[in-house]
């Protein structure tokens, strides 16, 4: 079935009546996933949004529970979230990232029910990529830009419309509501996309582990500012911190995004910090993205979207880290250059 491009806004309005429809929109000069309102311009042409759809499933600040203290006794009220939402126009790199967030929040002994409720109330409509950005390298991690794994409905651009196909049972069920907007049509052959950036990431995990003590990390981290931009724009970063906000005898406990590059990320009571220097924090970030996560969950935590490449204030580039480490490994890291980690303070 084909959804003609001129019927797109009507479909979105229909969907918006029953659920919050997040579409890529340009707000204040940045594209991000924002709720669709009648007549808002939808940016489906751009390869990726500046800010990932992660904030719709795992918001930056989220209330865990509210509490009230009257005299001695305390009452906790869990916040329940039942809003239906549709993520429309999600690229394959972001659906891959949503799958990684699912693995973190929904498996391994504990289920994060806040994330689970939101995830179960979300219909994901993937849109195949037509024209990748300069910094896109999702194919290097085996992601097919035309097929959004883990999405419910897959759209493929066919010039004047989108070929619609359901991938999951939930997708077919949702498609019934779309039928008035769809017309018959065949899927055209997928165009061959040219990626200006393609890397061999097969041995990146081992080479990173071998180079753990190499001086490469010192020079790389000296230019890092220690800010949180990369973690906050990254679609797969999921670390959070918890705190509370009091007002008189009531208040709420919340969790909010945190970045392992922040200096107080792993600070403990008594001011012991297992990662005191910027080098260790930045090294831990790249190791977690490219090595530690695949040890635990079997797939890389980097989806190759290139958002951190575009937005890092110091121009630190994860694709260069991948290239440099494999070239250092190629040149026999142990012989060349001192392996002792020259510790640069803070």
């Amino acid at each position, binding site marked *: 079935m084909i959804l003609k491009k001129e019927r797109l806004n009507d479909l979105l309005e229909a969907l918006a009546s029953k659920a919050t429809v997040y579409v890529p929109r340009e707000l*204040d*000069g*940045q594209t991000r996933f924002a709720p669709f309102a009648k007549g808002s311009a939808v940016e489906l042409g751009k390869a990726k949004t*500046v*800010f990932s759809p992660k904030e719709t499933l795992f918001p*930056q*600040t989220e209330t865990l529970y509210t509490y009230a203290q009257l005299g001695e006794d305390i009452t906790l009220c869990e916040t329940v979230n039942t809003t239906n939402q549709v993520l429309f126009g999600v690229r394959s790199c972001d659906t891959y990232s949503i799958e990684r967030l699912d693995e973190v929040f929904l498996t391994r002994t504990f289920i994060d029910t806040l994330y689970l409720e939101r995830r179960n109330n979300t219909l994901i409509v993937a849109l195949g990529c037509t024209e990748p950005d*300069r*910094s896109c390298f999702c194919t290097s991690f085996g992601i097919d830009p035309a097929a959004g794994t883990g999405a419910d409905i897959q759209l493929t651009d066919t010039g004047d419309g989108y070929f619609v196909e359901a991938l999951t049972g939930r997708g077919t069920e949702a498609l019934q509501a779309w039928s008035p907007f769809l017309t018959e049509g065949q899927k055209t052959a997928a165009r061959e996309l040219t990626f200006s*950036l393609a890397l061999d990431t097969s041995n990146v995990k081992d080479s990173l582990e071998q180079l753990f003590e190499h001086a490469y990390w010192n*020079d790389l981290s*000296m*230019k890092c*500012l*220690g*800010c*949180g*931009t990369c*973690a*906050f*724009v990254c679609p797969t970063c999921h670390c959070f*911190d918890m*705190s509370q*906000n009091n007002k008189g005898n009531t208040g709420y406990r*919340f969790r*909010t*995004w*945190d*970045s392992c590059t*922040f*200096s*107080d990320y792993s600070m403990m009571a008594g001011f012991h910090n297992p990662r005191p220097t*910027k080098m260790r924090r930045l090294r831990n970030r790249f190791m977690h993205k490219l090595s530690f996560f695949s040890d635990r969950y079997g797939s890389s935590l980097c989806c190759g979207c290139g958002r951190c*490449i575009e*937005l890092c*204030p*110091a*121009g*630190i*580039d994860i*694709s*260069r880290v991948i290239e440099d480490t494999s070239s250092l490994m190629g040149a026999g890291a142990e012989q060349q250059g001192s392996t002792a980690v020259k510790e*640069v*303070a*803070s």
Partner: protein
Amino acid sequence: MANTQETLRERARILLEDGTLDYLIGWEAGRFEGQTTPLIIRTVADVDRLIYNEYCVHLLAKYPLADKTTKKIGVVVRGCDARGINLALKDGQIERDRLYLLGIPCQGMKDAQTGEELKKCRECTHRNPVVYDELLGDLLEQSAVADRFAEVNRIESLSADERYDYWADVFSRCIRCKACRDVCPTCTCKECFTDQAAKGWQGKETSLAENQNYGITRMFHSGERCLECGECERVCPKGLPLMQLNRKVIKDVHELFGEYIAGIDDCTPSPLDHYQLDDVEEFM
């Protein structure tokens, strides 16, 4: 521009070879056209990676401060970097004799996407480095700068509620990644108030109130020592108009305490570091 790069490389090769420098901080080309990234060179072999073109946007003044050893550091300094180095010297963050400054008069950097001159460079008042050990290329004639405080005046003309709504909208978009604090040459405190959530100075929540507390207090801390290097606006992933914050403080400083150019040298105390007996008196 190209021959400046050649002289820079050639000087770097000599300085690294004869041991006056342990390492040099400059820029290298990024992966894409128009993208650069700071570079630390320790050996002569890396000198060819060193570049100087119209996309070298990063401020280098803060990088030497992280090195607590006694190594001799070379830094390529344009107008804003030189003022940043002066600020660090005035604050006693680093000793002057550990630094070897290669001054380059800067005719303004370009935005890689649009190709125009960056906003911060259009409004730059000090294109020539104010402190250097060596000057590569001849001094530029300082072009007149349009009124830097135009936006500040526009906001001041609004009513109180309009001003509040304008800034409430700006601060509601802040994601507290703290890139503006980490890039700012004035922000060199050992432990910043934003990292002391336990002591209650700044909560971790990204609510409007916490963002206002962060944005207003951080910018007032750098306030009158701000170099107007425009880095905070460049690095903000949300594109917030942060320069309108510090320009307000600088405008008031000029009106109240007389002309003060931050980082012009490494000795004059900044306005809030000292006082005059006959200061403006409004509180009688």
